[in-house]
């Protein structure tokens, strides 16, 4: 048994894994809207920042 078979099967398995990942991504609708997520990502910080601020102030007082 030559090493080429192992290499081939590994490379094909990896390729297939990526292919399946692509299919599931499409199926979940990740390709339907290509704009909103790029903006939404920027707001994640805003929401977190808002919450802890008051609690810190209270502790200091």
């Amino acid at each position, binding site marked *: 048994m030559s090493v080429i078979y192992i290499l081939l099967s590994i490379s094909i398995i990896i390729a297939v894994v*990526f292919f399946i990942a692509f299919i599931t991504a*499409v199926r979940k609708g990740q390709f*339907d809207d290509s704009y909103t997520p790029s*903006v939404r990502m*920027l707001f994640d910080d805003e*929401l977190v920042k*808002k919450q802890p601020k008051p609690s810190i102030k209270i502790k200091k007082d």
Partner: protein
Amino acid sequence: MDKISCYHCGDDCNNTIIAFDDKNFCCNGCKTVYEIFSENDLTCYYDLQAAPGAVPKEIQGKYDFLSQENIIEKLTEFNDGNTQITTLYIPHIHCSSCIWILENLNKLNPNISSSQVNFGKKTVRVTYNSEITSLKEVVLLLATIGYEPYISLDDFKTGQQNVNRSLIYKLGVAGFAFGNVMFLSFPEYFQVDGFWIEQYKPVFRWLMFAFSLPVVFYAGRDYFVSAYKGLRSKLLNIDVPIALGIAVLFIRSTVDIIFDFGSGFFDSLTGLVFFLLLGKFFQQKTYTFLSFERDYKSYFPIAVTKISSKMGEHPIQVYDIKKGDRLLIRNEELIPVDGILINGKARIDYSFVTGESETVSKKSGDKLFAGGKQTSGVIEMEALKSVEQSYLTQLWSNDVFSKNKEDGFTTLTNKISKKFTIAVLSIAFVSTTFWLFVDASKAMNVFTAVLIIACPCAIALSAPFTFGNLLRIFGKLKFYVKNASVIEQLAEIDTIIFDKTGTITSNKKSRAQYDGMALNPSEETLLKNTLRGSNHPLSRTLYDILDEHHIISLNHFEEHLGKGIEGTYNENHIKIGSASFVGTQESTILNTQVHISANNKYKGKYTFYNSYRKGLSKLFNKLKKNYDLVILSGDNEGEFDNLKKLLPSKTKLIFNQKPDDKLDYIKYHQTEGAKILMIGDGLNDAGALAQSNVGIALSENVNVFSPACDAILDASKFNQLNKFISASKSAIKIIKWSFLLSFIYNIIGLYFAVTGQLAPVIAAILMPLSSISIVVFTTITTNLLGKKLK
């Protein structure tokens, strides 16, 4: 005076300034929205974008129908009794702030568990607990914060929509296979006749075969289907040689590896399909937030209020309205059926139907037509017809709306492909016959090689990439075209027909002329201040035209619906309105007039003229050289003289056209061979837009209103129309040049094929090279074209 703009919506606070929290607001609505946000710690909204909000509208009673079970059922995509999911279309979504606030709805109403915005489609998908809150409450919440959802009869039928993602899947499959096959065919490209390659050759080859199976039978399936359909209707479309090429590639390659003749052409095969699909994907660019297929259903409400003696006022589905039903139409509601006004003062805005923005007053007993919008107070009406049989909606039963425009049109690519296919087949047969006599063993080889190398991949790609790119460029310039074939048809236009009202005139009537006795300064001040109190569109227009005067508070002000307004200040009394209201004779002039009398003495009248869009005469003068120009108007002839002066003398002016007349006019000229571009705006043009070769809807606000059409043009770009048409013509030239380019590649390839020297590696180099150079060529030239447009 310094202009103060509202902190929430950015409008000028011209008269009333409401100060709150050190910020200025133009109305109480905007202030309330700000309050809601600040109470819930959501003022971040204003940090993301300055003045992002919309002025909230009055919504009382408007959404009562949303508590009806069967309507909720239709509007929600998931409903299990305690959780409901609904997707609402919100035209106002326009900036990142909107996304932020709409995705934080759960802070405003804790019973909303999540909300997700699709910016491209301008929709928000809301999940909420329906035991504690309701669809109506969600919609009301959205409306109060200035994001009023647009719910129309269209939503009623669709329910859950299936998104068609098959092209992305196919592209994925082809790309995946292409990459792997390329990598597997590399060892044989650099064929070293050694022991190693001899031993493992079959493994590589059969793996490539396996990868190409889904490409041929799944990703490339559309080409076979389309070629079959083309052949059945005796048409040699571009998909015929493509399908032939794919089939020959696959069969020849399979035969090659079975009998060990060579490594086959799997690399070229998968690459070909991948590039072709890429072209399709590129051309598919659509404007998800625009709809080109709209009919009256997009504008009609789902439900209205019915008054019955048994049940009192209750919401009723529009489709359930029967003749004789009594309906209650509130302010800002649309009249869904033809009927008779029973009660109340009607002031109907027919702008949806005619494009005319001026409202029409109706008295009890007058006939009301479906499609009008009530603009003052509540009225009661009796239905005379059902929805489908109403005057306006009947237009949609015409055949034009069920025909597919593209069917009768042969694209440039298909015209070429007919000659191309015949040429390729004859070359294949001639060279095969030649080889049969010279070296019979090579004959079959040559025959397949010719078909493989001549596969018109580059030709098939020229049009998608040119048009696809041009669609994008047009889109940036606010000219939204439905698809590529529209650009092609636009290039062939020889007659341009314009609607008048709302198309060549702008919706705002800003030109008025005064005839009569001159008003003294105190009268002028009184006039201006009286107009200030009225919300009637004519009053607003006149108010804006008049010079600035200092503001006085009137002693007395009264608005007589459908007649006019009157105001008193100190000793002076003024009446503004219709001729009968002011006490003078009706004139015979067809244009709209407003009469004025001061202290019961007739003073004079303002006559309103249509104000034409900027650059109208210039545009017509540019267009007249190459096109026949026609104005087709549903209006009376009041503007005839004005238009005669403005437009080139060759322009035909036709007035008093009903929607059906417009359609028939176009049909008649098409039978005489004219290629017609129709430009209109109202639903009354819908038939004409559908019948014409290219129908462009002109729209002041592309998000809100446009009838079914092939393209939507933003009103501000109206004077650039000639540039768009000439750009389409240049696009056709670009495509012809790229055809020439791909022929050169084909001739080189054919040389190898005919002489029987086509090795897989040559095919694998030539095919992608020709495709890529076509893509590069078309992209660069269309971008240059786009630069000229700006």
